[in-house]
Each structure stands twice: as C-alpha cells, then as structure tokens.
C-alpha cells in the first residue's frame, strides 16, 4: 500500500476533474460522497505510508517516486517527483485528515448552495494542489502546488462571485500572493543556477556542506521567505487574508487556517538546512514572525466580525510558527502548525456553526448568550479557545511553549518577550470573542419564527473530533521535564528538519512554562473583566485613547497606505502614460509623419487633374525626353 503513496494527491485530483467536467449532471448526494471519499482514500493511503515510514529503521530515506520528466531543457530539469518523508507525513496527514473533516462538514454547510458541485470540485482541487505542494520533492514542483493552492484560494474566496466584495477579495488574494511568488521564482532561479537542481535534498545538502557562498544563501532564503510572507500572510503581504473571509466558512477553515496559509512555514522547515545555514535570513524570519504575531493580535482585539477575529488570529499564530523556525526550533514550528490546524479549523468551523445558526450573521455585536442555544458548538468552541490561548494541558499550550522555549534557549530574549506578550493578547481576544458571542444578553436580530438551532450532525461530528484533537494533540510533544524522550514529535521529525536549540535546564524550563501559563490566564482574566464584568470598560477605554483605537479599528490603515502608495500611483500613472505617451508621443509621431506626407501630397495635387489628356501629355513629354536622351 505504502508504495502507492504517489496516488495520495492524484485521487482528489481525479475527483476534482470529474466534478469539474460532470459535476453539474450529478446528484448532490453523489457529489458530496465522491468528494469526501476521494479525500478519505487519500487519508487512508497517507496513514498507510505513515505506518510504513515509522517502521523504517532510523536514518533510512523516505519514499520517493518519479512519475516522469516534466520540463527539461539543457541544464534546466524538473521532474514530476514525489517524496514522502517524516515531515511530509505530518503535513499529508493534517491536510487529508483535517481536510476530510471539513469536507464532511461542508456537505451540510453547503447543502443548499446553488453551486454545490462547483464548491466540491474546487475543494477537491485544493486538496490535490496542497498535497502536490507538500509531497513535491523539488522546489519547482512545490511551486506548482504553491500556485495551485493560490488559484483554489482565489476560486473559493470568490465562490459567491456575485458579491463584489467576494470577487474583489479573491483577486486581491491572488495578486498579493503573486507579488510574493515573483520573489519565490527568483529564489528558485538562484538555486537552479547555483546548485544545479532544485530538489530539497540537494539544496539542503549544498547549504549544509558550505558549498554555497553565504551571501547567496541569505539572498535566496530571503527571496523564498518573501514568497512565504505572501502565502502565509505575514508582514508585509498579510493584507489579503482578512478579506479572504468573504469565502464560505469551511473554506476559511481549510485553506485560510489549517493548511494553505501554513505552506510558508512548511517550506521553511523543508529547507531548514538552507535557513539554518543562513543566520541573517533566520533572524529576518524570526523578527517578521514575532512582529506579525503582535501586530495581528493587536488588530484582532477590536474586530467585531467573528471571522475577522479568527483571521487576524491566524496571521498572528502563523507569526509564532515563523518565530519558532527563525530561532531554529523548526520542529516546534511544525508542532504549532499541527496543533494550530486542529484548533483553528475547529474555531472556524464552530464559528461557521454559529453563523449557520444565526442565518448568516457574522457581527458579534449582534450575538451574545448563544451558549444555551448551541449545546454542542459552545463547548467545542470553548475547547478551541482554551487551546489557542495556551491554557495548560491543551494542545496549544505545548506547542506555543515549545516555540517560546526555543526562542529563550536560543538566547533571543526579546523575541521570547514578544511571544509572551502575544500570548496575553491571544488569550484576551479569544475570550473577548467567547464572551461576546456565547455569554451576556441575547442581541440577535432574528426575524420572529426563525429560531436559533444547533447545526446538523454532519457539522457537529467533525467539530467534536476536532475538539478532541485540539485537546489532546499536544501530548505527542511534551516539554523536557516529562523526560528526555517525551518530545515524541521532535524526535520523530529529527531526520527531516534541523534539530532545534540546546535544551534548557529543567528548572528554567519550568519557570518559562509557568510564565506562559500566567500570561494566558492573565489574558483570559482581562477579557473577563472587560467583556463580562464591566462591559462599559472597552468603550471607556476607546474614548480614552481614541488615536490608538482608531488605528486598530482602521487596521493601521495598511490597506489604505498600499492603495495610496502602490496601487493607485501605478494605475493612475499608467493611465497618464497611456494618454500622454502612447497616444500622444508615439502615435503622435506616427500620425505627424503621415500628416506631413499628406501635406506634401496636397502640394503636388494640381498635377492630378483627372483629365486623361493631361496624363497623356505628361506621358508624351516623358517619352520625347527619353528618346531625346537616347538619340543625343
């Protein structure tokens, strides 16, 4: 079974193709079943391959399969080749596992939608491209998946394309991603030209063996990271992700929380040899990650749209992952990626359940008191919120702690401090969300006769499964004071990614854990004070610091700044150039010369009288002159 691992991406791909071609003719039931079972098959295959992998002796290479030589021209070669090693296995299981749950959830969430088949076709297509990205054995093929998931993201954000906002958000996502991708391509070109290939093993080997000049490595690592800031929504290219919430909620859960947006983190881990060998690039990664973590968390504090809060939270959490990678704790970054995939998709799906229950309402100011009405959604949401806040013994606690410990162990105290502050903010905005949505007075504006109801079974079962994982997934990577061997996850990944920084002494680590716990609880307590005990406090605070509040609500006006500094000058400038230069100068020169020729023609116009005899006379004179010349 394991040697068929290369079918993992192809099964959803084939299903997507069938749905694109014949989806409109198939019944809804069939479409849903086909889409889900394709992902389920992939999940089974991934599990089989994973089982095969863990049974291999340590140090043994993973599975590889070259399908065919794709592009090859002179020194440029790029095969279609898949690889399945420990790192891949993690991502594959997350993508197919969480993907399957979200597919199932979608069967109910999207049951009524007009374009049901198109939705599942795109969702399958996304799974295909994501798996290609994850399983590619070289950068060029990874780029195929990279662009492919970007395309699916575009299609699914703009799924309800009749809404101008959705269409605009989809396009923004794609174009902003393309900015990063341009840098990514340049990075690939540098590697191809200097390493002679783009397979990950080759690159890591070249980087680790000191075969590449360090300046070049830093340049390449930063170029690739710029690509990652686009895909993973980091500063400065994060602006598309909040808008991406225009898409259906399961899409936000799958693409914009669990899988696609973490592709950048995966890429950095995949190339951990390169990043570990380049100090400056790692520093950039760590600081961008930390800055994004704080910056986005601050914006999440004041959002009123339930999905937007989660979107900014996603940006912030991915910042944590990059922070981990930047300080050399790649395994910790991956660990957080996995736990985040569980609890963030849980939060999104649960938020979807809330939105579903309220018939499309997304504004938290019109929610409140929902815990009585949603007996399943509320507890699972609470589990997710606790997990992301880093409350002890839930998954987020362990993974966030691993990152912070890594930063501290690497001597990056400032980064560690930033992470800790971010943890307070995270707990605060998450519980602000919980209190505003599930507690307090009911502020819903439902029409009479439309009661708030819990979602159907197909939606709640995935929620419960995800909640279980969100609670328990942390136990695969316990901190060091549970024993040297407690960090199963880190040891498992050791063959695929660079190992992290040196271990800390047990007492130090204990102190760090306590501090992290305290900051999580502090955040929750603050949220309780602000939004449960004295609900007037937030508005008082807002009027006390109007500047700060407006800056946060305005999302630091980054969108406006980009618009004013990049987009508008470019479009206006191009318009001006088109009118002034293309039409006036170039065409003017042409039309001018044509006009000059015309004028010259006018001057000689009298010769063309239209009288045949005049022409004949000219002819005669010419003939006589010619004869004269001949004779004389």
């Amino acid at each position, binding site marked *: 079974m394991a040697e068929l691992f290369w079918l993992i991406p192809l099964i959803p791909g084939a299903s997507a193709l069938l749905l*694109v071609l014949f989806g*409109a003719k198939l019944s809804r039931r069939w479409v849903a079943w086909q889409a889900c079972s394709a992902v389920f098959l992939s999940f089974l295959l991934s599990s089989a391959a994973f089982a095969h992998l863990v049974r291999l002796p340590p140090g043994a290479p993973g599975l590889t399969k070259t399908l*065919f030589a*794709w*592009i*090859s*021209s*002179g*020194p*440029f*070669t790029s095969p279609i080749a898949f690889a399945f090693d420990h790192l891949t296995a993690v991502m594959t299981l997350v993508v197919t596992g969480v993907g399957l749950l979200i597919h199932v959830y979608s069967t109910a969430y999207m049951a009524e939608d007009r374009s049901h088949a198109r939705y599942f076709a795109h969702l399958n297509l996304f799974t295909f491209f994501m798996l290609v990205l994850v399983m590619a054995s070289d950068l*060029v093929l990874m*780029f*195929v998946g990279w*662009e*492919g998931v970007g*395309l699916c993201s575009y299609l699914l954000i*703009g799924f309800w*394309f*009749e*809404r*101008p906002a959705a*269409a*605009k958000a*989809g*396009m923004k996502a*794609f*174009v902003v991603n*393309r*900015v990063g*991708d*341009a840098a990514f*391509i*340049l990075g690939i*070109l540098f590697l*191809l*030209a*200097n*390493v*002679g*290939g783009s*397979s990950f093993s*080759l690159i890591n*080997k*070249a980087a680790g*063996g000191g*075969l*590449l*000049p360090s300046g070049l490595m830093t340049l390449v690592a930063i170029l690739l990271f710029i690509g990652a800031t686009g895909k993973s929504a980091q500063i400065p290219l994060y602006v598309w992700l909040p808008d991406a919430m225009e898409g259906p909620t399961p899409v936000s859960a799958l693409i914009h929380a669990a899988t696609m947006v973490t592709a950048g983190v995966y890429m950095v881990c995949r190339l951990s040899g390169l990043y570990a060998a380049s100090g400056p690039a790692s520093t950039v990664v760590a600081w961008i990650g930390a800055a994004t973590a704080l910056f986005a968390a601050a914006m999440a504090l004041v959002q009123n749209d339930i999905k937007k809060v989660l979107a900014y939270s996603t940006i912030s959490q991915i910042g944590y992952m990059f922070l981990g990678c930047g300080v050399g704790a790649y395994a910790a970054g991956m660990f957080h990626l996995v736990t985040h995939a569980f609890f963030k998709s849980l939060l999104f799906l649960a938020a979807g359940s809330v939105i579903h229950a309220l018939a499309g309402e997304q504004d938290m100011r019109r929610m409140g008191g929902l815990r009585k009405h949603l007996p399943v959604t509320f507890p699972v949401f609470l589990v997710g919120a606790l997990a992301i806040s880093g409350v002890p013994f839930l998954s987020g606690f362990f993974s966030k702690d691993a990152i912070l410990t890594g930063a501290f162990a690497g001597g990056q105290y400032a980064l560690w401090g930033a992470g800790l502050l971010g943890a307070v903010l995270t707990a605060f905005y998450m519980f602000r969300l919980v209190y505003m949505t599930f507690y307090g007075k009911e502020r819903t504006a439902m029409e009479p006769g439309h009661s708030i109801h819990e979602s159907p079974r197909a939606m709640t079962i995935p929620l419960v499964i995800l909640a279980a994982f969100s609670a328990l997934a942390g136990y695969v990577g316990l901190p060091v004071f549970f024993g040297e061997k407690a960090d199963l996850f880190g040891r498992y990944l050791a063959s695929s990614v660079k190992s992290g920084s040196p271990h800390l002494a047990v007492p130090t680590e204990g102190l760090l854990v306590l501090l992290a716990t305290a900051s999580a609880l502090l955040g929750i307590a603050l949220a309780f004070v602000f939004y449960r005990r004295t609900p007037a406090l937030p508005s008082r605070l807002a009027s006390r610091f109007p500047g700060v509040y407006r800056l946060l609500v305005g999302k630091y006006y980054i969108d406006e700044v980009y618009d004013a500094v990049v987009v508008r000058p*470019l*479009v206006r*400038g*191009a318009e001006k*150039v*088109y009118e002034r230069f*293309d039409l006036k100068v*170039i*065409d003017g020169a*042409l039309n001018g010369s*044509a006009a000059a020729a015309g004028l010259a023609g006018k001057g000689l116009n009298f010769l063309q009288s239209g009288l045949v005899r005049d022409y004949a006379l000219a002819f005669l004179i010419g003939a006589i002159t010619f004869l004269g010349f001949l004779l004389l």
Partner: protein
Amino acid sequence: MNAMITNVPLTSIVTFLPLAGALLLIFVRGESVRAVRAVALAVSLLTFALSLLLFFGFDGKSGLPEFVEHAPWLGRGLDYHVGVDGISLFLVLLAAFLTPLALLSSWRAVDDRVKEFSFFMLVLETGMIGVFVSLNLFLFYVLWEAMLIPMYFLIGIWGGRRRIYATMKFVLFTMFGSLLMLVGIFVLYSAYHRATGGFSLAISDLAGLGLSPALQTWLFLAFGLAFAVKVPLFPLHTWLPDAHVEAPAAGSVLLAAVLLKMGAYGFLRLGIPLFPQAAASFAPALSILAVIGIVYGGLMALVQKDMKSLVAYSSVSHMGLIMLAVFSLNFVATEGALDQMLSHGLSTGALFLCVGILYERTHTRLIKDYGGAAARMPVFAAIFLVVLLSSAGLPGLNGFVGEILCFFGIFTSNKVLAAFGVSTVILSAAYLLWLYRRVMHGPLRDPDGLLRDVDRRELACLVPIVVLIFLMGLFPGAILRKMDASVSRYLDSLRTKAPVSLTWKPAARKAIPARISGDAAGPAQLDGRLER
C-alpha cells in the same frame, strides 16, 4: 512512415493547400454561405491534418531542416526552397491549428461577404505557413509581404469603426520596416556574389558569409526594424492595439497568435544567424527595450477600457519576455522563447476567441458594459478562466513552461533583467484577473438578456485549445525534444561565427565544485550541456 512520405512534397502541400482551397472557393457560389464555409473549413482542417504528418514524421535528431524541397524558380539563386526544422515546425503547426478554429469562430460573427472572407483567411494561412517554411530569403520576403495583403483586407473590410485608420497604420508600420529589409536583401545578394562569384539567397549559404562588422550592423538594423515592428518591440507597438481592436475576432486571433511570432521568428532565423556579431552587440539595447516592453505593456494593459486592446497590450508584454529570452542567446532561453511563442499563440488566440464570443452577444467590447457574466455563462466562465490563467503562466498550464524556461535562460545571462522580467508574473495576474473580475464577477449586468452560454460550435473552437493548454503544460517534453537539436545547432553556429562573446554580460559566477550529488545536473554553466 518516413520513407513513405519523403517522396511526397509534404511541406509544399501543407503550404499551398490553403491557397488551392482559396482558388477553389472562387468557383463556389457566394450565396451558398454554408457551402463556402464548409469548403474553407474542410480545406483548413485537411491542412492541419497534413501538418500533423510533418510533426510525427519530423525526426529532429540532426537539427537540420527536414522535408526539404529545393527547385530552381526564377534562377540566379532565387530558388524555391522550403523545409521545416525544430524552430519552424511548431509555428507551422500553430498556424495550421488555429486557422480552422478562427474560421469556425467567425461562423456567425461574419455574415457579410463570407466568400471573400474565407478566401482571404485561406490565403493568409498560406502566407503564414510559407514564411515559416521558407529556406530562401527571396521566397521568405515574397511571402512576408504577401501576407500583408489578406490581413489588410480582413481588417479593412470586416473590421470595426476605425478600421481604415487601423489598416493604414498596420500596413504603413510593417511596410516601412520591410522595405528596409528588401534593401538589405539586395545588399546580401551582391555581397554573396562578390564573395563567391555565384548567386544564392539560400539562408544557409548567406549565414556563412562572414560579413564585415560594419556591414553587419547596417544589415542587422535593416532586418531588425522589420522584425521589431512585427514583434512588436517597444516603442514600435502602437499599431498593435489599433489593429486588434478593429480587426474581426478571427483576424485578431491569427494576428496575435501567428503574425506576431514572425517577428521573433525573423530574429531567430535571419536577424541573429546572419549577423551574429551585430546581434551580439545590439543585444543589450534590444534587451532593455524588451524589458521596457514587458513592464510598459503590462501597465498599459492594466488601464485599458476595451477588452481587445487589453489583450493586445498583454501581447506587447508577453512578446517582450520572448524577445528578452531570444536575446539572452543561450540554450534554455531560446527553447523557452520558442515554447513561449507557442503558448502565447494558443492562449492569446483563445483570449481573442473568448472576447469575440462575448462581443457576438452584446456587441460591445468595453469592460464597463459587463459584469457577473459568470452567472449566465458558467461553462464559458470556466474556459475563459483557464485561458486567462494560461496566459498568466499558472503552473500546470502551458504558459508556465515557456515562462520558467525564459526566466531561467534570461537569468543565466543577466540577473537584473531577469528580475524585471519576473515582474510579468505580478502584472499579468493583475490585469488578467482584474479583467475577469470586472467582466465575469460581481452583480449581473445584462439588461437585455443577451448573455447565453457557449453553444456547441463555440465549444468546438475553444475545447481543442484548452486541451492543448493542458497537454503542453503537463507534457512539454514532446515539443522540447523536437526543438533540442535545431536550437543547439543554431547556437553552435553563432558561437563559431561570432568571435565576440555571445553572452554579453560575462558570467562571473563562482562555479560550485562539480556535482553536489548524482541525482541532478552539475552547476549550470552558461549554455551547459548544449551537446546532448
């Protein structure tokens, strides 16, 4: 198979079958529109089928022209000499593939003077194929010029409101360039006579002349201007948007897909091999113009209000990338440029077909008159999107292969220019998706209920292209392998004839110690592994 068809003058048949069909059309009654269309379509389809024989029969190991036919014609070197090699083969196929689709697409769009229209389309096809198969400079020039005539009428008769202005501009621009080329041909002819005492205009003979650098410079300028107008290279591009906007959809398809390629082809076949030293010394200047074209075309496309002129400016941008690759003068770049020429032909051809389909329904090409069309035309929306993405170079579709090869080839010659070239990735996504958003997405704007989904005939036009878009994106090897030998032969001939360094920016790269691992090629030396 090969032995069977070598006795048949396949190249000539493929070239002149459309012309024969056009002559046949004269005897079909013009009133029976169906018969006229059927004959024209059948002839062009037959041509395409025969051109496939060329493709499958083409061996491509030697890099020399195959299916060569050589016969004296006007004497004194003005011979009839045709054949295909790895550089021209696919352009012939492209022309033969798109002409039937263009004819089919104008089934309803052209109902005035159908007979004349079909006649000119077929004549145009002969001209296009003929230019690509010519191995004699005289024949090349005759067909190059002859092609203008059908295009002139296609735009001038079946064009839009400002068609006369557009045709005049088109003809003046191109004539201006090609007249200088004619003078250049005279000079070459006499230079050959002076050097050898014989007469020849065979391209292979002329390439071995060893002209003086000064003469090369003048001749390169004369030929280069003709080709640069056709490409079109910035700032000679302004005829293109006008010609496209005014041309009927079928004309636009062939204009963008095939005629523009002739400029780049001219450089590859004549401009560079005949005058290698001059080409090498002009390469920097032309590369910079090409880069300006990439960015400029992209920005202009961003602000167009008319769908057709948007696509036209996107062609300026794409052709800029192709020219940049051509002037990088290395193996990967040249193959990339050739592949990109085909890809651009397909995707831009299809874009014009798509715009034509929309125009047929609403009779407006202004972007602002559309909105939310995807709701009424789901199948069309999907196809249009595939075509757009192919043009934007999405991996897995055809555009990516050529684009990445161009990038890599340009990069090995000059990193800075490559960085500018890569900007096309952003710009093309921006202007194409913005177009899609404004036309297909958003609230429906169709007050008169004109939008309906594509019918079978329109599907028959688009589906073959879409299939090829996928095939070329997934299995480019089938094409690249047939190019390899010809391209390396072309580069070898440059290297032996031009004492100057062809890579005009000396590569100061520290080579990485040999192969790092066995599973990939060694460090990519410039033009490394040319001999494969």
